[in-house]
């Protein structure tokens, strides 16, 4: 289908879609007027019932914990997909680095970037752990904290070089974290079943709302999800990095020896 024909078909289809969308959206209640009952009910009962002050996290991990299980495993299978797709290119590593453009130096990381980057790693890890642990009280939770922790690993790569990142966060550690996190989350749900209730029933003792050790299983599942997301994102990022940089480390080693 040539370009012109495609543009014409799209013009018809796109405008039709836009018209249909706007017509459908016109029937919604006005922006700012909220009619549904569930939001109001949840806002009223979530805090006394589950003793967590963050209602969104309560919905995610307790009332609709099943959806979060599905999302966790979407993350898991996407990471598996990325690693298996990019692993087919591993055969290139066997190629000797001499047929690259000879004598090309890769510039060393400047000292300013190194110091700033390495100085930022501990606060990032601390902030990530804080966001994961306080998910049931303040905005945050497993996902946000997990991605923050994964970027701490990436900061190590940015400020030092690839080999340092490999030593600090080896692949088997990320894989272990991801697997254990996903399994841990599923186990929380199953143990709700075992303890004589529904799947994902919140059966641990709930403290008073506003304290750190409250909200029962929500705390445990926050940690499990944080672990799984950290492992998953670190694995994905290092898979992408590995492809671009195996050659680079070869060049750096040759340049240092020269």
């Amino acid at each position, binding site marked *: 289908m040539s370009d012109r024909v495609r543009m014409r078909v799209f013009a018809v289809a796109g405008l039709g879609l836009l018209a249909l969308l706007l017509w459908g959206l016109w029937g919604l209640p006005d922006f700012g007027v909220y009619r549904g009952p569930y939001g109001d009910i949840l806002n009223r009962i979530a805090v006394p019932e589950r003793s967590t002050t963050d209602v969104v996290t309560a919905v995610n991990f307790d009332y609709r914990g099943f959806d979060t299980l599905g999302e966790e495993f979407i993350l898991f299978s996407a990471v598996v997909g990325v690693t298996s797709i990019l692993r087919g290119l591993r055969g290139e590593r066997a190629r000797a680095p001499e047929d690259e453009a000879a004598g090309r130096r890769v510039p060393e990381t400047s000292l300013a970037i190194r110091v700033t980057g390495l100085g930022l790693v501990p606060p990032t890890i601390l902030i990530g752990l804080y966001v994961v642990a306080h998910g049931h009280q303040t*905005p945050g939770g497993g996902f946000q904290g997990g*991605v923050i922790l994964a970027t701490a690993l990436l900061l190590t790569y940015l400020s030092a070089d690839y080999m340092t990142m490999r030593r600090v966060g080896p692949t088997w550690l990320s894989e272990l974290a991801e697997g254990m996190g996903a399994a841990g989350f599923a186990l929380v749900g199953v143990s709700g079943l075992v303890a004589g209730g529904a799947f994902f029933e919140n059966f641990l003792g709930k403290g008073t709302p506003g304290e750190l050790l409250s909200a029962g299983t929500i705390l445990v599942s926050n940690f499990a999800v944080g672990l799984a997301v950290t492992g998953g994102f670190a694995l994905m990022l290092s898979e992408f990095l590995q492809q671009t940089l195996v050659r680079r480390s070869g060049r750096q080693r040759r340049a240092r020896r020269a």
Partner: protein
Amino acid sequence: MLVLVALSATSVVLAHDPLRQAMLASIYGLVLGILFFVWQAPDVALSQTVVGAVALPLMILLALAKMRGGEE
């Protein structure tokens, strides 16, 4: 604020060079995060900022570096 969202989305689509587009996508993610914050959704704003302004442009840049590295 919403007009800013529409403008950012238009600019992300109309930039044809993927490298420029990665930066614009990061700005778009940040603008969306701010909009979610204005709409009283702090959890979602945190998640969107962390994912859409950091993790996503990072992956785009890495994919581009990989594609360009193969041509040398």
